[in-house]
């Protein structure tokens, strides 16, 4: 048996964990919740955590748990499966699927060629009143952290102030922001790429599309959902099997076809509707550097966004 605290919802990964049980005979006890809530749960439980595996929506939460020394180093055969930029340098967590930042736009008011090449294009006053974002969302904050690291504090502040000056609508999360783009309430929103595909599955007439940034623009950040094993795990053998399974072909295919995410192991292709990871040209950045959330939070508070 293996106990998983999943910051990814049952809708997304429940079937995958069932596949794991079928393939290995190992029962999975899963606790589902928001990634930040699960991270806080593990941090509060400390050494008494009954969890074996933490399966998180973003690298920031994994970093926070690792920073408290609660994650055990992963074996090399697991770490070796993905590129360095998608895992912790000290080997405490590993990315299992990729998600790209995109600008979702309303297809009734905008066309692909109307979209700026850089995320900085949206600070232009012509976008005033047309933007939506979700500043309390983990993926958004990871993006701001990336922006600070790649472009420096001053440029990051400039971007935040520029967008703020355009009076963006503040949404609760990516789903709500996309919903507003589709209804035409706003023209563009900064979100993750896969929300659109889920929306399309429920409503094929959704009037929204994804715009991917290119050429190392910070707006093209590729973040990961990942997993780590707690160093208090009682079932560490089973836990390693589970993490290895998540990086196996079956699970990676599941991510590509069912959740529209990017598979992270060699030789696997993303859904044909998506540009490949190579085409996106994500900025050069170790995701572990994204753990400096405190600085981001301070900046967001200074600019008056949070």
């Amino acid at each position, binding site marked *: 048996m293996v106990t998983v605290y999943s910051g990814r919802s049952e809708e997304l990964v429940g079937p995958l964990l069932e596949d794991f049980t079928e393939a290995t005979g190992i029962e999975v006890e899963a606790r589902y919740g928001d990634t930040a809530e699960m991270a806080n749960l593990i941090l509060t439980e400390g050494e008494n955590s009954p969890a074996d595996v933490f399966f998180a929506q973003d690298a920031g939460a994994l970093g926070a748990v690792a920073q408290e020394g609660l994650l055990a180093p992963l074996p090399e055969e697991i770490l070796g499966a993905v590129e360095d930029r998608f895992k912790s340098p000290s080997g405490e967590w590993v990315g299992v699927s990729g998600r790209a930042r995109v600008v979702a736009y309303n297809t009734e008011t905008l066309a692909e060629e109307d979209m700026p090449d850089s995320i900085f294009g949206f600070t232009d006053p012509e976008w005033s009143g047309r933007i939506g974002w979700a500043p309390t969302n983990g993926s958004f904050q990871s993006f701001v952290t990336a922006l600070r690291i790649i472009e420096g504090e001053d440029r990051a502040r400039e971007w935040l102030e520029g967008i703020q000056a355009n009076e963006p609508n503040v949404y609760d999360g990516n789903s709500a922001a996309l919903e507003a783009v589709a209804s035409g309430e706003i023209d563009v929103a900064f979100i993750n790429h896969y929300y659109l595909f889920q929306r399309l*599955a429920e*409503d094929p007439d959704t009037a929204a599309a994804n715009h991917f940034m290119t050429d190392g623009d910070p707006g093209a950040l590729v973040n990961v959902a990942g997993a780590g094993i707690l160093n208090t795990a009682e079932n560490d053998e089973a836990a390693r099997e589970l993490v290895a399974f998540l990086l196996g072909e079956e699970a990676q295919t599941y991510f590509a076809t069912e959740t529209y995410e990017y598979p992270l192991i060699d030789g696997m292709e993303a859904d044909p509707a998506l540009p490949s990871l190579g085409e996106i040209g994500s900025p050069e950045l170790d995701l572990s550097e994204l753990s400096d959330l405190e600085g981001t939070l301070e900046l967001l508070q200074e600019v008056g966004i949070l």
Partner: protein
Amino acid sequence: MATLTTRRSASRVPAPPAWLTGAGALVALLGLLPIAYLLILAAGSDESAIALALRDRTLGVLARTLVLAATVTTASVLVALPLAWLTTRSDLPGRRWWGVLSVLPLVVPSYVGGYAVVAAFGPRGTLQSLLEPLGITRLPELYGFPGAALALTLFSFPYIVLSVRGALLRLDPAYEEVSRSLGRGPWRTFWTVTIPQLRPAIAAGALLVALYSLADFGAVSLLQFDSFTRAIYVQYRASFDPTLAAVLALMLVTCTGGVLLAESRLRGRARYDRAGAGAARPPATVSLGAWRWLALAFCSVVVGLSVVMPVGTIAFWLIRGVSAGEPLNLVWDATLNSVLASALAAVLAVLASIPVAVLAVRHRNWVGVLIERATYAGFALPGIVIGLAFVFVAARFLPAIYQTLPLLLLAYLVRFAPEAVGVTRASLLQVSPRIEEVARTLGRRPGAVLREVTLPIIRPGLIAGGALVFLTAMKELPTTILLAPTGFDTLAVRIWSATSEGFFARAAAPALLMVIVAAFSLTVVLRRERDR
């Protein structure tokens, strides 16, 4: 006679039996546990935490949140009072059904209700598209304060409806009749006799609404209002820093103290029981005459906004999804779990409310008052704070019950006991201590008096309190996620897990199940409300 109803108590206050104080103290200590946890965390905070807490922006957010709570409370009283009266005392057509419908909004989770309000009144909502042909291109701004106030009012006014209904059903009509016979008209009688007698019930319901508005996260964040709870969540979510969150949460606790004090002032120390001999008759039904059309219109608007609109939104998600080929996902396991946990929580909360209310109403010493007030501590705290407090204690010291149903129920008790306490307390205030004294002189021991005399009389109040807890426990999310046995799926968790990923169609089936279960249990409960 009418003045007798609010005379001050001059009689000697008997000392409570030790078992009663013990039981009450236990409930209160449990309620104070989250605050103890916050104090432990905050003790480790440094200057930067204090600086953050006292920033102009933080204080501004706190002030605006308090204004929001005051607005929502006032609006809720204005909506709930007429509804409660119409559904208990008038000949409103379909009175029983309106009674159920006017309480049903409580079961709408705020993260679903928030979406419904946006879908209906948002910049691109249904109303806008209906008005578009009339040349109206932009509705008044929904996002921010107006939307948050609207959503919170729509989904929390039933707190007041329930508590006032209980009071109206138990109200002795003799006072109103005396007032009428002395020449006062129906309106003046209502304002000078009925309303003053309803004060404890209104105050109890209003207190719940105010504290609910302070603690809510779902509706305010969907409606883009920057509330204090959101500031607390940001600390948990973004910086994973429980210390800063604890400092902010303690500020919220302080405000709760202020609200509790205000409520004490509002309800005063008056007594509300019958002064005369004999038993109260059920009140006569007031004929509405031509006013019935206005009454029906009022009920329709309120129910339309608070029940039909969210249920319509859910149905729309369902139809859109199913027609696009999404499977219809009827989650019976989760339904069963939800009903089980909420029903047990309701029973537990009602049982816990009895010693607390008896101490506060019958014995009125400072211990009793403190115990009663302490049970409210948890209600204004965001669920995540209470959940983590229990995680902190149980993971360390009580591993045997950690992540079991009993622990989840204890957390529900801390979170929802005030709902039962308020209603039980208000009902108890209407029972004359004379009746209990008679039972005592006939040789009954205090425990027997409570069981055989007092509790049967306040049964409608106990049932209303249980219904409140049942409905709100059913939609409770953060404590469920943090404390439920691993793998214990509930409807609330299902709905949230789907909407958070944008799977609205998949959220629809569990959301509809939740409303149906709630409606069914409410009809049962409200039918029993009248049996005495």
